[in-house]
C-alpha cells in the first residue's frame, strides 16, 4: 500500500466476506472481493453479497490475515481425532429399555 500509483499498479487487497443470514446463526463465508480499505470492503460486500436481504450482519477480513491449515498436513493435523471413537455417543452400548438416553 506504499506505492499506490507508480510502477506496476498495486491491486486493492483481497478481503474474505462472512455473512450472518439471520439472528441466531453463525457468520458463514460467502466469498471474497477487492477493496482499498476496510470500510470500502464492507460497502462492496453489501452490494455484491446481500442484494436480496441475504444477511443481517457482515464481517470482512483481509485474506492475508487468515491463518489456514495446509492441505499437505491434512493427515497429521486431523489424525489425532480419527481413532477416538469413544468421543461419539454411538460408542456406548445402552440397553433399549432405558428411556430418554
Amino acid at each position, binding site marked *: *500500500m506504499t506505492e499506490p*500509483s507508480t510502477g506496476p499498479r498495486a491491486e486493492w487487497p483481497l478481503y474474505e466476506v462472512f455473512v450472518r443470514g439471520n439472528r441466531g446463526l453463525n457468520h458463514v463465508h460467502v466469498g471474497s472481493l477487492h477493496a*482499498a480499505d476496510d470500510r470500502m470492503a464492507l460497502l462492496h460486500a453489501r452490494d455484491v453479497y446481500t442484494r436480496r436481504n441475504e444477511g443481517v450482519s457482515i464481517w470482512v477480513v483481509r485474506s492475508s490475515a487468515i491463518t489456514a491449515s495446509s492441505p499437505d498436513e491434512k493427515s497429521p493435523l486431523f489424525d489425532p481425532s480419527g481413532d477416538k471413537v469413544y468421543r461419539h455417543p454411538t460408542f456406548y452400548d445402552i440397553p433399549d429399555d432405558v428411556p430418554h438416553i
Partner: protein
Amino acid sequence: MVATLADEADLQAGFEATIARHDRLEPRDWMPEGYRRTLVRQIAQHAHSEIIGMQPEGAWIGRAPSLRRKAVLLAKVQDEAGHGLYLYSATETLGVSRDELTEMLIDGRQKYSSIFNYPTLSYADVGTIGWLVDGAAICNQVPLCRTSFGPYGRAMIRVCKEESFHQRQGFELLMTMMRGTEEQQAMVQESVDRFWWPALMMFGPPDADSPNTAQSMAWGIKTHTNDELRQKFVDMTVPQAARLGVTLPDPDLRWNPERGHHDFGQPDWEEFARVVKGHGPCNAQRVAHRRQAWEDGAWVREAATAYAARQEESA
C-alpha cells in the same frame, strides 16, 4: 519445493481419487496443470461474459418505457456485475490476479460468450435476452453447480439463484408486449427471430467438433455435452414460445415422438466461428467500451488506494 516424480504420481493419484468420489477440489489442493489451465480459461470466460453482458442491456436503461421497467433492468444489470465478481473471485483462487484477467479481456487474449456480440436493436430485445439468453445460460449453469472445483460450483449456486429472476422478467416483458398492439407483437417476433440461432450457439460447437469436452467431463468440470444441453434448451423453450404466441425461425423444428425430443436444425457454425474470432457485429465496440471503462476508472482506483494509505499512516 520441488516434488519428485514419485511424489507427483502420488499427488496425481490423490487428485484422481477425489474426482472419482465426485468430491470437490479446493484451491490449495494439488491439481494437474491442465486441470488448472482449463478451469482458468472456462471460469474467466464465464466471468468476462457476465461483465460484457451488461452492455447490450445496459444500453436500454435510459430508454426503459416506465419506472418499473427501469428499476427491473437496473437490478438485472447490477446482478450481472455481481455474477462477474463471484466468478472472478473463483478464478483468482487458481492463482491469477484480477488485473491480469481484466487485461486479458481487453487485450483479446481471453474470450467471452459470442452472444454478447449481437446488438440490441429494440426494447423487445431486453425481454428476449432474459427469456432466451438467460434461459440458455440457466441450462448451462445448473449442472455446473456440481462441477468438481469447489469455488466455481459455489459461485454457480449463487448465480443460478439470481438467474431465475432474469428469465422470468424477460418472459413477463414479452408477454406484456404480446398483449399490446400489432406493432409491439411484431417487435417481439422480430427480436426472437434474431436471437434464436445465436442463443443455440451459446452451448458451443456440436460434440463432434468439441475436442475438449471429453477431458472436461473426465475431470468433472462439465457434466453434460454441448449437444445434450442444447437439446434440453430446445425442449424447454418450444412450449414457452407457443404460450407466448411467437414462432421459432427453424423450418426443421418438430416433435419427434420416437426420440421423445424435438428435432431441430443446426445454427450457422461458420457465423459462430467468425463471431468467436472477433468479427461479429459488436465485438470491437464491446471490448472498446470495457477498455474505456477500465481506463477511465483508473484515477478512482488510485485515489482510493492513496486515501487508504493516508488513513493507515494517520491511524
